[in-house]
């Protein structure tokens, strides 16, 4: 019935906003912390996370430790990242 569908929709929206809020809060919690990034071609790098744009396309980082030295400020393309980890 119509009632059931609109309550399903509300439930779905609540779950979605809950997940989105937790994800956004995890990004806020990551600001200023050293993060290990696993990239393609077996590259792993460490950098201090600063901020992300809202489409989660770019991570802005500082003190990026690359195999060829440290880059003071850099942007990482999120599609290049397989996984990232940080300590709370």
């Amino acid at each position, binding site marked *: 019935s119509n009632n059931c569908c609109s309550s399903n*929709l*509300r439930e779905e*929206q*609540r779950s*979605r*906003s809950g997940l*989105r*809020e937790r994800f*956004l809060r995890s*990004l*806020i919690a990551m600001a200023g912390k050293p993060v290990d990034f696993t990239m393609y071609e077996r590259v792993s790098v460490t950098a201090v996370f*600063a*901020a*992300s*744009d*809202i489409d989660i396309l*770019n991570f*802005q*980082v*500082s003190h*990026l430790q*690359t195999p060829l030295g440290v*880059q003071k*400020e*850099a*942007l*990482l*393309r999120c599609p290049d990242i397989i996984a990232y980890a940080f300590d709370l």
Partner: protein
Amino acid sequence: IQPPAERPGERRLVEMKRLYGDDATKIQGMETAMQLLFDRKCDGKQPKYW
């Protein structure tokens, strides 16, 4: 010259409402704050792609 047919951001607001229902404004507020922070830091530091 005609005025714009739709207000900027209106379509986005409709989409946000469809996705997040009553929480749409809260989520949109968090996202806007995050984007502003990103823009402000990028303006200051001018980071390059690695």
